[in-house]
Protein backbone atom coordinates (compact mmCIF):
# COMPACT_ATOMS: atom_id res chain seq x y z
CA UNK A 1 0.00 0.00 0.00
CA UNK A 2 1.41 3.37 -0.97
CA UNK A 3 2.08 5.82 1.82
CA UNK A 4 -0.65 8.18 0.61
CA UNK A 5 -3.18 5.40 0.52
CA UNK A 6 -2.07 4.29 3.97
CA UNK A 7 -2.44 7.86 5.28
CA UNK A 8 -5.99 8.29 4.01
CA UNK A 9 -6.99 4.81 5.13
CA UNK A 10 -5.83 5.45 8.69
CA UNK A 11 -8.34 6.54 11.32
CA UNK A 12 -6.88 10.04 11.28
CA UNK A 13 -6.80 10.16 7.49
CA UNK A 14 -10.51 9.37 7.28
CA UNK A 15 -11.17 12.06 9.86
CA UNK A 16 -9.11 14.49 7.79
CA UNK A 17 -11.36 13.82 4.82
CA UNK A 18 -14.43 14.38 6.99
CA UNK A 19 -13.00 17.67 8.24
CA UNK A 20 -11.98 19.01 4.84
CA UNK A 21 -15.22 18.09 3.07
CA UNK A 22 -17.19 19.44 6.03
CA UNK A 23 -15.42 22.78 6.01
CA UNK A 24 -15.84 23.05 2.24
CA UNK A 25 -19.57 22.51 2.67
CA UNK A 26 -19.55 25.20 5.38
CA UNK A 27 -18.04 27.78 3.02
CA UNK A 28 -20.67 26.84 0.45
CA UNK A 29 -23.42 27.69 2.94
CA UNK A 30 -22.15 31.28 3.17
CA UNK A 31 -22.29 31.71 -0.62
CA UNK A 32 -25.65 29.94 -0.89
CA UNK A 33 -27.21 32.15 1.79
CA UNK A 34 -25.72 35.28 0.28
CA UNK A 35 -27.18 34.53 -3.15
CA UNK A 36 -30.55 33.42 -1.83
CA UNK A 37 -31.01 36.69 0.05
CA UNK A 38 -32.21 37.86 -3.40
CA UNK A 39 -35.43 36.03 -2.52
CA UNK A 40 -36.15 38.82 -0.06
CA UNK A 41 -36.07 41.46 -2.81
CA UNK A 42 -39.56 42.49 -3.73
CA UNK A 43 -38.99 42.24 -7.51
CA UNK A 44 -41.14 39.31 -8.68
CA UNK A 45 -38.02 37.16 -8.60
CA UNK A 46 -36.11 39.21 -11.19
CA UNK A 47 -32.79 39.25 -9.32
CA UNK A 48 -33.16 35.68 -8.12
CA UNK A 49 -34.01 34.23 -11.53
CA UNK A 50 -31.11 36.00 -13.24
CA UNK A 51 -28.82 34.78 -10.43
CA UNK A 52 -30.08 31.18 -10.82
CA UNK A 53 -29.42 31.37 -14.55
CA UNK A 54 -25.92 32.70 -13.92
CA UNK A 55 -25.14 29.87 -11.47
CA UNK A 56 -26.13 27.18 -13.95
CA UNK A 57 -24.35 28.72 -16.94
CA UNK A 58 -21.03 29.96 -15.60
CA UNK A 59 -18.46 27.14 -16.13
CA UNK A 60 -16.24 27.76 -13.05
CA UNK A 61 -19.31 27.62 -10.83
CA UNK A 62 -20.41 24.40 -12.50
CA UNK A 63 -17.03 22.84 -11.69
CA UNK A 64 -17.31 23.92 -8.05
CA UNK A 65 -20.89 22.62 -7.99
CA UNK A 66 -19.77 19.13 -9.00
CA UNK A 67 -17.00 19.32 -6.37
CA UNK A 68 -19.74 20.17 -3.93
CA UNK A 69 -21.93 17.17 -4.83
CA UNK A 70 -18.85 14.97 -4.53
CA UNK A 71 -18.06 16.44 -1.10
CA UNK A 72 -21.57 15.74 0.14
CA UNK A 73 -21.32 12.11 -0.98
CA UNK A 74 -17.79 11.61 0.38
CA UNK A 75 -18.71 13.24 3.70
CA UNK A 76 -21.76 10.98 4.04
CA UNK A 77 -20.00 7.78 2.94
CA UNK A 78 -17.01 8.34 5.22
CA UNK A 79 -19.36 9.14 8.09
CA UNK A 80 -21.04 5.80 7.51
CA UNK A 81 -17.74 3.91 7.30
CA UNK A 82 -16.44 5.56 10.48
CA UNK A 83 -19.69 4.93 12.34
CA UNK A 84 -19.61 1.23 11.44
CA UNK A 85 -16.00 1.04 12.66
CA UNK A 86 -16.95 2.84 15.86
CA UNK A 87 -19.79 0.40 16.51
CA UNK A 88 -17.40 -2.52 15.99
CA UNK A 89 -15.00 -0.97 18.50
CA UNK A 90 -17.62 -1.60 21.22
CA UNK A 91 -19.34 -4.90 20.46
CA UNK A 92 -20.98 -5.21 23.90
CA UNK A 93 -22.90 -2.09 24.89
CA UNK A 94 -23.03 -0.68 28.41
CA UNK A 95 -26.16 -1.42 30.41
CA UNK A 96 -26.03 2.02 32.00
CA UNK A 97 -26.36 5.25 30.06
CA UNK A 98 -23.06 7.04 29.52
CA UNK A 99 -23.25 10.10 31.73
CA UNK A 100 -20.12 11.87 30.51
CA UNK A 101 -20.88 15.57 30.04
CA UNK A 102 -20.59 15.64 26.23
CA UNK A 103 -22.88 17.92 24.22
CA UNK A 104 -26.02 16.47 22.63
CA UNK A 105 -24.87 17.62 19.19
CA UNK A 106 -21.52 15.89 19.45
CA UNK A 107 -23.20 12.59 20.29
CA UNK A 108 -25.84 12.82 17.54
CA UNK A 109 -23.90 13.95 14.48
CA UNK A 110 -25.03 10.84 12.59
CA UNK A 111 -28.71 11.50 13.24
CA UNK A 112 -28.34 15.19 12.36
CA UNK A 113 -26.35 14.33 9.25
CA UNK A 114 -29.00 11.83 8.13
CA UNK A 115 -31.71 14.50 8.44
CA UNK A 116 -29.50 16.82 6.39
CA UNK A 117 -28.85 14.19 3.74
CA UNK A 118 -32.59 13.55 3.37
CA UNK A 119 -33.11 17.30 3.18
CA UNK A 120 -30.46 17.74 0.50
CA UNK A 121 -31.99 14.96 -1.62
CA UNK A 122 -35.48 16.51 -1.42
CA UNK A 123 -34.19 20.06 -1.81
CA UNK A 124 -32.08 19.26 -4.85
CA UNK A 125 -34.70 17.11 -6.59
CA UNK A 126 -37.26 19.86 -6.10
CA UNK A 127 -35.21 22.83 -7.30
CA UNK A 128 -31.92 21.79 -8.87
CA UNK A 129 -33.18 18.75 -10.78
CA UNK A 130 -36.38 20.40 -11.98
CA UNK A 131 -34.48 23.52 -13.01
CA UNK A 132 -31.93 21.64 -15.05
CA UNK A 133 -33.68 18.53 -16.32
CA UNK A 134 -37.46 18.97 -16.32
CA UNK A 135 -39.98 21.22 -18.06
CA UNK A 136 -41.87 21.92 -14.84
CA UNK A 137 -40.33 25.37 -14.47
CA UNK A 138 -42.04 28.23 -16.36
CA UNK A 139 -40.57 31.49 -17.67
CA UNK A 140 -40.93 35.14 -16.86
CA UNK A 141 -40.45 38.25 -18.96
CA UNK A 142 -39.16 41.35 -17.19
CA UNK A 143 -39.60 44.69 -18.94
CA UNK A 144 -37.56 47.51 -17.49
CA UNK A 145 -38.18 51.08 -18.61
CA UNK A 146 -34.65 52.44 -18.96
CA UNK A 147 -35.81 56.00 -18.23
CA UNK A 148 -37.94 55.39 -15.15
CA UNK A 149 -36.21 52.19 -14.02
CA UNK A 150 -39.59 50.57 -13.46
CA UNK A 151 -39.90 46.84 -14.07
CA UNK A 152 -43.00 44.86 -14.89
CA UNK A 153 -43.14 41.07 -14.95
CA UNK A 154 -45.39 38.79 -17.00
CA UNK A 155 -45.35 35.05 -17.63
CA UNK A 156 -43.65 34.07 -20.84
CA UNK A 157 -43.97 31.01 -23.02
CA UNK A 158 -40.95 30.42 -25.24
CA UNK A 159 -41.19 28.89 -28.70
CA UNK A 160 -38.51 26.29 -28.00
CA UNK A 161 -38.57 24.20 -24.80
CA UNK A 162 -34.78 24.48 -24.74
CA UNK A 163 -34.99 28.26 -24.17
CA UNK A 164 -32.89 29.48 -21.21
CA UNK A 165 -32.45 33.25 -21.22
CA UNK A 166 -32.50 36.25 -23.54
CA UNK A 167 -31.73 39.94 -23.07
CA UNK A 168 -33.06 42.33 -25.74
CA UNK A 169 -33.79 46.04 -26.07
CA UNK A 170 -37.14 47.22 -27.42
CA UNK A 171 -37.21 51.00 -27.62
CA UNK A 172 -36.99 52.38 -24.09
CA UNK A 173 -37.38 48.91 -22.63
CA UNK A 174 -34.81 46.34 -21.68
CA UNK A 175 -36.47 42.94 -21.90
CA UNK A 176 -35.10 39.96 -19.97
CA UNK A 177 -36.70 36.57 -20.44
CA UNK A 178 -35.54 33.85 -18.06
CA UNK A 179 -36.59 30.59 -16.35
CA UNK A 180 -38.81 31.37 -13.39
CA UNK A 181 -37.34 29.37 -10.51
CA UNK A 182 -38.74 31.98 -8.18
CA UNK A 183 -42.31 30.84 -8.92
CA UNK A 184 -41.32 27.28 -8.05
CA UNK A 185 -39.79 28.47 -4.76
CA UNK A 186 -42.91 30.48 -3.93
CA UNK A 187 -45.22 27.54 -4.68
CA UNK A 188 -43.11 25.08 -2.63
CA UNK A 189 -42.97 27.48 0.29
CA UNK A 190 -46.75 27.89 0.31
CA UNK A 191 -47.00 24.26 1.49
CA UNK A 192 -47.00 24.19 5.30
CA UNK A 193 -45.57 20.65 5.63
CA UNK A 194 -42.74 21.60 3.29
CA UNK A 195 -42.05 24.74 5.32
CA UNK A 196 -41.97 22.79 8.59
CA UNK A 197 -39.58 20.26 7.07
CA UNK A 198 -37.28 23.07 5.94
CA UNK A 199 -37.28 24.69 9.36
CA UNK A 200 -36.50 21.36 11.06
CA UNK A 201 -33.67 20.76 8.58
CA UNK A 202 -32.22 24.19 9.36
CA UNK A 203 -32.37 23.28 13.06
CA UNK A 204 -30.34 20.20 12.14
CA UNK A 205 -27.84 22.43 10.31
CA UNK A 206 -27.47 24.51 13.44
CA UNK A 207 -26.84 21.58 15.78
CA UNK A 208 -24.65 19.78 13.22
CA UNK A 209 -22.38 22.79 12.76
CA UNK A 210 -22.20 23.99 16.34
CA UNK A 211 -20.20 20.80 16.92
CA UNK A 212 -18.94 20.11 13.41
CA UNK A 213 -17.23 23.40 12.64
CA UNK A 214 -14.99 23.47 15.70
CA UNK A 215 -14.55 19.67 15.58
CA UNK A 216 -13.12 19.96 12.06
CA UNK A 217 -10.47 22.35 13.35
CA UNK A 218 -9.63 19.96 16.18
CA UNK A 219 -9.27 17.11 13.68
CA UNK A 220 -6.98 19.21 11.50
CA UNK A 221 -4.93 19.90 14.60
CA UNK A 222 -5.52 23.64 14.47
CA UNK A 223 -6.09 24.28 18.12
CA UNK A 224 -4.44 27.20 19.81
CA UNK A 225 -5.35 29.25 22.84
CA UNK A 226 -5.28 32.40 20.69
CA UNK A 227 -7.33 31.20 17.71
CA UNK A 228 -9.62 28.50 19.07
CA UNK A 229 -11.96 31.03 20.75
CA UNK A 230 -12.38 32.69 17.33
CA UNK A 231 -13.21 29.32 15.75
CA UNK A 232 -15.81 28.68 18.47
CA UNK A 233 -17.25 32.16 17.98
CA UNK A 234 -17.61 31.74 14.21
CA UNK A 235 -18.92 28.17 14.57
CA UNK A 236 -21.55 29.23 17.07
CA UNK A 237 -22.72 32.63 15.81
CA UNK A 238 -22.23 32.40 12.06
CA UNK A 239 -22.79 28.71 11.37
CA UNK A 240 -25.19 27.71 14.14
CA UNK A 241 -27.22 30.92 14.44
CA UNK A 242 -27.06 33.40 11.54
CA UNK A 243 -26.91 30.94 8.62
CA UNK A 244 -29.66 28.54 9.79
CA UNK A 245 -31.87 31.50 10.79
CA UNK A 246 -31.28 33.17 7.42
CA UNK A 247 -32.24 30.03 5.52
CA UNK A 248 -35.21 29.23 7.76
CA UNK A 249 -36.53 32.78 7.27
CA UNK A 250 -37.03 32.14 3.54
CA UNK A 251 -39.74 29.45 3.73
CA UNK A 252 -41.34 31.20 6.70
CA UNK A 253 -41.57 34.60 4.98
CA UNK A 254 -42.82 33.05 1.72
CA UNK A 255 -45.40 30.99 3.58
CA UNK A 256 -46.74 34.07 5.38
CA UNK A 257 -46.87 35.94 2.06
CA UNK A 258 -48.75 33.05 0.45
CA UNK A 259 -51.51 33.41 3.06
CA UNK A 260 -52.38 36.92 1.85
Amino acid at each position, binding site marked *: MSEFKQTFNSSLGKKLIMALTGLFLCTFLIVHLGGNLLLFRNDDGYGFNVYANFLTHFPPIEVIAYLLYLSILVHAIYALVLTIKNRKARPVAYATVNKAPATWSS*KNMGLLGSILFLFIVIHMSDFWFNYKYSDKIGYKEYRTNVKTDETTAVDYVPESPKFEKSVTTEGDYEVVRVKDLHARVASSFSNLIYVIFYVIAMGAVSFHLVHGFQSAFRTLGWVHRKYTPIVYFIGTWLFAVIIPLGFAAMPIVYYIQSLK
Partner: protein
Amino acid sequence: MSNGNMNLTLKVWRQKNAETKGAFATYKAEGISPDMSFLEMLDVVNEGLILKGDEPINFDHDCREGICGMCSLYINGHPHGPKNAITTCQLHMRSFHDGETIVIEPWRAAAFPVIKDLAVDRSSFDRIQQAGGFVSVNTGVTVDANEIPIPKVIADEAFNSATCIGCGACVAACKNASAMLFVSAKVSQLAMLPQGQPERWSRVQAMVAQMDEEGFGNCTNTGACEAECPKEIKMTNISRMNNDYFSAKLFREESTHEHAAGE
Protein backbone atom coordinates in the same frame (compact mmCIF):
# COMPACT_ATOMS: atom_id res chain seq x y z
CA MET B 1 -28.62 3.26 60.28
CA SER B 2 -27.45 4.41 63.67
CA ASN B 3 -23.73 3.84 63.09
CA GLY B 4 -23.82 5.60 59.69
CA ASN B 5 -23.01 2.43 57.75
CA MET B 6 -24.70 1.82 54.43
CA ASN B 7 -26.59 -1.02 52.81
CA LEU B 8 -26.23 -1.16 49.06
CA THR B 9 -27.40 -3.30 46.16
CA LEU B 10 -24.72 -4.11 43.60
CA LYS B 11 -25.44 -5.16 40.03
CA VAL B 12 -22.12 -6.63 38.97
CA TRP B 13 -21.08 -7.91 35.54
CA ARG B 14 -19.94 -11.53 35.88
CA GLN B 15 -18.16 -13.19 32.99
CA LYS B 16 -16.09 -16.34 33.20
CA ASN B 17 -13.65 -15.42 30.43
CA ALA B 18 -13.38 -13.69 27.05
CA GLU B 19 -15.04 -16.60 25.25
CA THR B 20 -18.18 -16.88 27.35
CA LYS B 21 -21.10 -14.49 27.50
CA GLY B 22 -21.45 -12.49 30.69
CA ALA B 23 -24.48 -11.38 32.68
CA PHE B 24 -25.32 -9.20 35.63
CA ALA B 25 -25.52 -10.70 39.11
CA THR B 26 -27.05 -8.89 42.08
CA TYR B 27 -25.36 -8.78 45.47
CA LYS B 28 -26.13 -7.10 48.76
CA ALA B 29 -23.34 -5.05 50.31
CA GLU B 30 -24.32 -4.57 53.95
CA GLY B 31 -22.79 -2.60 56.78
CA ILE B 32 -20.51 -0.65 54.45
CA SER B 33 -18.62 2.23 56.09
CA PRO B 34 -18.89 5.50 54.13
CA ASP B 35 -15.14 5.92 54.68
CA MET B 36 -14.28 2.76 52.75
CA SER B 37 -12.91 3.12 49.27
CA PHE B 38 -14.96 1.56 46.47
CA LEU B 39 -12.41 -1.24 46.15
CA GLU B 40 -12.50 -1.93 49.91
CA MET B 41 -16.26 -2.24 49.64
CA LEU B 42 -15.76 -4.85 46.89
CA ASP B 43 -13.19 -6.60 49.14
CA VAL B 44 -15.88 -6.88 51.83
CA VAL B 45 -18.38 -8.28 49.33
CA ASN B 46 -15.78 -10.74 48.05
CA GLU B 47 -14.99 -11.90 51.57
CA GLY B 48 -18.66 -12.72 52.01
CA LEU B 49 -18.72 -14.58 48.68
CA ILE B 50 -15.62 -16.60 49.61
CA LEU B 51 -17.08 -17.55 53.01
CA LYS B 52 -20.21 -18.76 51.24
CA GLY B 53 -18.03 -20.79 48.88
CA ASP B 54 -18.87 -18.61 45.85
CA GLU B 55 -16.44 -17.29 43.27
CA PRO B 56 -15.24 -13.79 44.28
CA ILE B 57 -15.73 -10.87 41.87
CA ASN B 58 -12.61 -10.37 39.80
CA PHE B 59 -11.46 -6.76 39.45
CA ASP B 60 -8.17 -5.02 38.72
CA HIS B 61 -6.30 -3.06 41.40
CA ASP B 62 -2.73 -2.48 42.48
CA CYS B 63 -1.37 0.64 44.22
CA ARG B 64 -4.72 1.86 45.60
CA GLU B 65 -3.39 5.40 45.75
CA GLY B 66 -4.44 6.66 42.33
CA ILE B 67 -1.19 6.46 40.40
CA CYS B 68 -0.80 3.00 38.91
CA GLY B 69 -3.73 3.05 36.46
CA MET B 70 -4.68 -0.54 37.27
CA CYS B 71 -8.15 -0.07 38.76
CA SER B 72 -10.98 0.45 36.32
CA LEU B 73 -14.75 -0.20 36.72
CA TYR B 74 -17.58 1.58 34.92
CA ILE B 75 -19.77 2.64 37.83
CA ASN B 76 -23.32 3.96 37.23
CA GLY B 77 -22.38 5.24 33.75
CA HIS B 78 -19.02 6.75 34.69
CA PRO B 79 -15.53 5.27 34.38
CA HIS B 80 -14.03 5.38 37.90
CA GLY B 81 -17.42 6.39 39.30
CA PRO B 82 -19.27 9.68 39.62
CA LYS B 83 -16.48 11.89 41.01
CA ASN B 84 -14.16 13.89 38.77
CA ALA B 85 -10.39 13.48 38.52
CA ILE B 86 -10.02 10.38 40.67
CA THR B 87 -9.53 6.69 40.09
CA THR B 88 -11.84 4.02 41.53
CA CYS B 89 -9.47 3.32 44.42
CA GLN B 90 -9.80 6.98 45.46
CA LEU B 91 -13.59 6.88 45.26
CA HIS B 92 -15.19 6.61 48.68
CA MET B 93 -18.52 5.12 49.61
CA ARG B 94 -19.65 8.49 51.00
CA SER B 95 -20.15 9.44 47.34
CA PHE B 96 -23.16 7.08 47.36
CA HIS B 97 -26.23 7.06 49.55
CA ASP B 98 -27.65 4.36 51.76
CA GLY B 99 -29.94 1.98 49.85
CA GLU B 100 -28.54 2.94 46.44
CA THR B 101 -28.26 0.41 43.62
CA ILE B 102 -24.82 0.56 42.00
CA VAL B 103 -24.26 -0.91 38.52
CA ILE B 104 -20.66 -2.03 37.97
CA GLU B 105 -19.46 -2.92 34.49
CA PRO B 106 -16.06 -3.59 32.94
CA TRP B 107 -14.52 -1.18 30.40
CA ARG B 108 -16.30 -2.11 27.18
CA ALA B 109 -14.20 -2.05 24.03
CA ALA B 110 -13.22 -4.61 21.42
CA ALA B 111 -9.59 -3.67 22.11
CA PHE B 112 -10.09 -4.36 25.84
CA PRO B 113 -11.40 -7.95 25.94
CA VAL B 114 -12.76 -9.12 29.29
CA ILE B 115 -10.35 -11.40 31.15
CA LYS B 116 -12.78 -12.21 33.89
CA ASP B 117 -15.75 -10.34 35.41
CA LEU B 118 -14.65 -6.72 35.69
CA ALA B 119 -11.01 -7.18 34.71
CA VAL B 120 -10.14 -6.37 31.09
CA ASP B 121 -6.99 -6.95 29.07
CA ARG B 122 -5.43 -3.54 28.38
CA SER B 123 -2.26 -4.88 26.75
CA SER B 124 -3.34 -3.09 23.55
CA PHE B 125 -2.15 0.07 25.35
CA ASP B 126 1.20 -1.60 26.04
CA ARG B 127 1.59 -2.49 22.37
CA ILE B 128 0.86 1.11 21.34
CA GLN B 129 3.53 2.29 23.79
CA GLN B 130 5.99 -0.27 22.52
CA ALA B 131 5.35 0.89 18.96
CA GLY B 132 6.82 4.31 19.71
CA GLY B 133 6.16 5.74 23.15
CA PHE B 134 9.82 6.01 24.11
CA VAL B 135 13.01 7.97 23.50
CA SER B 136 16.36 6.44 22.64
CA VAL B 137 19.03 7.63 25.08
CA ASN B 138 22.77 7.17 24.71
CA THR B 139 24.50 5.51 27.64
CA GLY B 140 27.60 7.13 29.13
CA VAL B 141 28.22 9.73 31.79
CA THR B 142 25.20 11.11 33.60
CA VAL B 143 24.01 14.38 32.08
CA ASP B 144 23.43 17.22 34.54
CA ALA B 145 19.81 18.09 35.25
CA ASN B 146 18.43 21.03 33.25
CA GLU B 147 21.32 20.81 30.78
CA ILE B 148 18.91 21.54 27.92
CA PRO B 149 16.86 24.72 28.43
CA ILE B 150 13.13 24.11 28.08
CA PRO B 151 10.56 26.93 28.37
CA LYS B 152 8.45 26.59 31.50
CA VAL B 153 5.12 26.58 29.60
CA ILE B 154 6.36 23.73 27.42
CA ALA B 155 7.76 21.77 30.34
CA ASP B 156 4.47 22.19 32.24
CA GLU B 157 2.39 21.12 29.26
CA ALA B 158 4.58 18.08 28.60
CA PHE B 159 4.37 17.16 32.28
CA ASN B 160 0.58 17.47 32.25
CA SER B 161 0.44 15.06 29.31
CA ALA B 162 2.86 12.75 31.08
CA THR B 163 0.52 12.37 34.06
CA CYS B 164 -1.55 9.88 32.00
CA ILE B 165 -1.60 6.61 33.92
CA GLY B 166 -2.92 4.54 31.00
CA CYS B 167 -6.01 3.34 32.87
CA GLY B 168 -8.24 3.37 29.77
CA ALA B 169 -11.04 5.52 31.22
CA CYS B 170 -10.92 7.62 28.03
CA VAL B 171 -11.70 4.54 25.93
CA ALA B 172 -14.39 3.45 28.38
CA ALA B 173 -16.06 6.87 28.34
CA CYS B 174 -15.84 7.46 24.59
CA LYS B 175 -19.01 6.62 22.67
CA ASN B 176 -16.73 5.27 19.92
CA ALA B 177 -14.31 3.43 22.24
CA SER B 178 -11.53 5.58 20.81
CA ALA B 179 -8.07 5.62 22.37
CA MET B 180 -7.13 9.04 21.02
CA LEU B 181 -6.74 10.75 24.40
CA PHE B 182 -4.35 8.08 25.69
CA VAL B 183 -2.30 7.87 22.49
CA SER B 184 -2.15 11.63 22.06
CA ALA B 185 -0.98 12.14 25.65
CA LYS B 186 1.78 9.59 25.13
CA VAL B 187 2.77 11.18 21.81
CA SER B 188 2.59 14.72 23.20
CA GLN B 189 4.67 14.26 26.31
CA LEU B 190 7.63 13.37 24.10
CA ALA B 191 6.86 15.50 21.04
CA MET B 192 7.01 18.68 23.11
CA LEU B 193 10.42 18.08 24.66
CA PRO B 194 13.87 18.32 23.00
CA GLN B 195 14.67 14.75 24.02
CA GLY B 196 11.74 13.50 21.95
CA GLN B 197 12.62 15.33 18.74
CA PRO B 198 14.80 12.74 16.90
CA GLU B 199 11.93 10.20 16.87
CA ARG B 200 9.10 12.72 16.83
CA TRP B 201 7.84 12.13 13.27
CA SER B 202 8.23 8.37 13.11
CA ARG B 203 6.81 7.95 16.63
CA VAL B 204 3.45 9.53 15.88
CA GLN B 205 3.02 7.43 12.74
CA ALA B 206 4.00 4.20 14.47
CA MET B 207 1.73 4.76 17.48
CA VAL B 208 -1.31 5.77 15.40
CA ALA B 209 -0.77 2.74 13.14
CA GLN B 210 -0.71 0.45 16.19
CA MET B 211 -3.78 2.19 17.65
CA ASP B 212 -5.68 1.49 14.42
CA GLU B 213 -4.50 -2.10 14.37
CA GLU B 214 -5.83 -2.71 17.88
CA GLY B 215 -9.37 -1.89 16.73
CA PHE B 216 -10.15 1.23 18.74
CA GLY B 217 -12.85 3.57 17.40
CA ASN B 218 -12.42 6.99 15.82
CA CYS B 219 -12.43 10.31 17.61
CA THR B 220 -15.48 12.55 17.16
CA ASN B 221 -14.28 15.26 19.56
CA THR B 222 -17.20 14.81 21.94
CA GLY B 223 -14.94 15.46 24.93
CA ALA B 224 -16.24 12.60 27.13
CA CYS B 225 -12.65 11.35 27.50
CA GLU B 226 -11.39 14.65 28.88
CA ALA B 227 -14.32 14.89 31.29
CA GLU B 228 -13.80 11.39 32.67
CA CYS B 229 -9.99 11.25 32.76
CA PRO B 230 -8.79 10.76 36.35
CA LYS B 231 -5.65 12.77 35.51
CA GLU B 232 -7.52 15.52 33.62
CA ILE B 233 -5.59 15.00 30.38
CA LYS B 234 -6.75 17.65 27.92
CA MET B 235 -8.18 17.18 24.42
CA THR B 236 -5.61 19.65 23.12
CA ASN B 237 -3.30 16.62 23.11
CA ILE B 238 -5.50 15.06 20.43
CA SER B 239 -5.21 18.11 18.18
CA ARG B 240 -1.48 18.28 18.80
CA MET B 241 -1.14 14.65 17.75
CA ASN B 242 -3.32 15.18 14.65
CA ASN B 243 -1.14 18.10 13.65
CA ASP B 244 2.05 16.05 14.09
CA TYR B 245 0.54 13.07 12.30
CA PHE B 246 -0.50 15.02 9.21
CA SER B 247 2.81 16.91 9.17
CA ALA B 248 4.68 13.62 9.36
CA LYS B 249 2.56 11.87 6.75
CA LEU B 250 2.40 14.71 4.24
CA PHE B 251 5.60 16.69 4.67
CA ARG B 252 8.28 14.62 6.45
CA GLU B 253 10.87 12.14 5.30
CA GLU B 254 10.50 9.75 8.27
CA SER B 255 8.18 6.76 7.92
CA THR B 256 6.60 4.38 10.37
CA HIS B 257 9.09 1.65 9.58
CA GLU B 258 12.12 3.58 10.76
CA HIS B 259 10.63 3.62 14.19
CA ALA B 260 9.87 -0.07 14.23
CA ALA B 261 13.51 -0.74 13.29
CA GLY B 262 14.58 1.03 16.45
CA GLU B 263 17.02 3.43 14.78
